[in-house]
């Protein structure tokens, strides 16, 4: 009744090519944007921003980035943590080297630097495929973490070996450091999330995205019909690392404020983001959002239920959380290998026919 293309006549190319061709989708999108931009910043408190909204927004960016590489281009990567670390350290060096420049520029530049590093580590993908490549990206993960740990230049020779975000502002509003207000940090992350989702969505609809998907589906066949695998794979690595770098920069500068590289950007982070896109749905921007939301909310929900309601010791809840995450991943893969995004697609197909399915 509400959800159908029928009767929705496009009279211009712009209308025909818009991001959400179905009216219902479009309005839903506007409503979500409205809530995210207008309602949330004025109603949230510190707890909600720090434990739910910020990790959700930041992980979403990382998930979108990884989804481009794994879901759209088919190059499995386990180096996400390392690339996030590149973003974080690039942002830190820029922040301390050029204090007067706006944070927007720093975060974007951190993304660009990560993209360059990503291309470098993406080069072997031209020779190595499948699992061999997945393991090869672990080289990036371990090497980068080691690099940031061992060379004091990266953390400005600080005694602790940590990097701490100094107080910086953008347009006169403080967004890093301890005196940041919750809404400002939220809004800053939100801008980047919307930007990433918008860019990613439109890239994947265009010729670049189609080339990625051709490479994913069958690289030799794609090569034969004229897709340049070198360019397709390296652009995927570049774009993916760009987003992951942004998310790493935000993760460090806005969310944590102080970072110890092995702890914040270890191999666990790579797996976490990978789970997000698997559970959310490979090759889907919506899936990146859904997966990030799911895996950010799950530990919070488990902690609320386990520790606060049932009063179990925290270590048991932590172990149970491992069991539940593991079980959920397996159950998801068995029941719906294409993730939450697929459930949403099925729901939309049902909606199309509702209320008269026959």
């Amino acid at each position: 009744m509400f959800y159908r293309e029928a009767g929705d006549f496009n009279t211009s190319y712009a209308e025909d090519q818009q991001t959400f061709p179905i009216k219902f989708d479009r309005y839903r999108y506007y409503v979500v944007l409205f809530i995210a931009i207008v309602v949330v910043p004025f109603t949230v408190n510190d707890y909600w921003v720090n434990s739910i909204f910020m990790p959700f927004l930041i992980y979403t960016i990382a998930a979108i980035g990884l989804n481009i590489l794994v879901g759209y281009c088919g190059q499995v990567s386990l180096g996400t943590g390392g690339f996030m670390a590149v973003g974080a350290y690039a942002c830190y060096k820029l922040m301390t080297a050029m204090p007067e420049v706006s944070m927007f520029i720093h975060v974007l530049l951190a993304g660009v630097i990560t993209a360059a590093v990503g291309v470098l580590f993406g080069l072997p993908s031209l020779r190595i495929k499948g699992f061999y490549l997945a393991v090869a990206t672990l080289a990036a993960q371990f090497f980068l973490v080691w690099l940031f740990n061992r060379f004091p230049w990266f953390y400005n020779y600080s005694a602790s070996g940590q990097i701490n975000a100094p107080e910086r502002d953008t347009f006169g509003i403080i967004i890093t450091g301890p005196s940041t207000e919750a809404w400002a940090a939220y809004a800053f992350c939100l801008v980047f999330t919307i930007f990433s989702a918008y860019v990613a969505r439109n890239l994947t609809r265009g010729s670049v995205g189609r080339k990625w998907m051709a490479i994913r589906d069958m690289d030799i066949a794609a090569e034969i019909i004229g897709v340049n695998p070198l360019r397709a794979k390296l652009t995927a690595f570049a774009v993916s690392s760009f987003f992951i770098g942004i998310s790493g920069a935000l993760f460090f500068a806005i969310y944590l404020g102080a970072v110890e590289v092995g702890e914040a950007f270890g191999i666990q982070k790579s797996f976490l983001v990978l789970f997000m896109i698997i559970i959310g749905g490979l090759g889907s921007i919506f899936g990146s959002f859904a997966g990030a939301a799911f895996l950010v909310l799950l530990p919070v929900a488990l902690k609320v239920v386990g520790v606060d309601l049932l009063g179990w010791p925290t270590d048991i809840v932590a172990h149970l959380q491992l069991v539940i995450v593991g079980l959920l991943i397996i159950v998801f893969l068995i029941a719906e290998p294409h993730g939450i995004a697929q459930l949403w697609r099925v729901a939309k197909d049902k909606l199309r026919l509702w209320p008269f399915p026959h």
Partner: protein
Amino acid sequence: MPEQLAYTIEVFLNGLMAGVLYALVALGFVLIYKASGIFNYAQGVMALFAAMTLVGIQNGQVPFAHLINAIFGTDVHKFGWSVHSFVAIALTVVVMIGLAWAVQRFVFRHLVGQEAIILFMATIGLAYLLEGVADLMWGSELKALDVCAAEGVCLPQGLNSWIDETTFETFGYGFFIDNLDIVASIVAAILVVGLVMFAQYTKQGRAMRAVADDHQAALSVGVSLNFIWILVWSLAGFVALVAGIMWGAKSGVQFSLSLIALKALPVLMLGGFTSIPGAIVGGLIIGVGEKLFEFLIGAPFLGGATENWFAYMLALLFLVFRPQGLFGERIIERV
């Protein structure tokens, strides 16, 4: 003999020993990958799980004691007996076979025909699940593992004084070689020979190779895929147990034990995912390579701890020239 050369040889020998341990873990990967095309990330956690189960049974711990206590408010910890090592090992093998059956029955039977990446993800899920279950069952604290045949006859620890003295007398420099590493090498050698004999000369072994070669052809001559897969997972569980005992005896049983899987991955890349000799040779190359690199270049010039990534870089460089690894099957691609 110049001192530097003596050091280098010692590092080389220690690298060989470490390589044997890496190979031991890589072996489990290869077994499963060959027979079912599943890249089993959970192999490391299986080693942890096996080692924890072994220690738990030996010490007569009550499984899930912590959880039971939290739910029912009781205070149970131990049965109050301790089990002989060999009995405990046998019981652990039974547990690992049960695990193999459960994994096959509840996870991978439902995922037949899925893409390789999905299967890989499932094993990562399995790794989380197993780690959580192991922690819940036996507790996550560091445990000492010691396997004893009888009172006082245990896995040896510490340096081998015989080698130390002999080399000191002949070269003027005593080599430091861990007793445990020597035992591990011998056990690994026996294990590999045993596995190869099993694969070559027994009915089940032949069936296993048939399945590895071609699923459908194996099915059509009456090999039960289900049985073979359970068998393979059990074997991998057994290899994991051996690896768990060796690593556990070396550095205690704790979470970091499961990270040896990450050490085994470059070994696999180097040796090829489908080759048992590849796992051994790859393990030795990686073990020697990373120890020598750390000793000659890493520690003096790069600030040390290069062991974390060197193996990956070595494997990566190697793969650029030979994408299927040393002994892997040639990759033939068709549209």
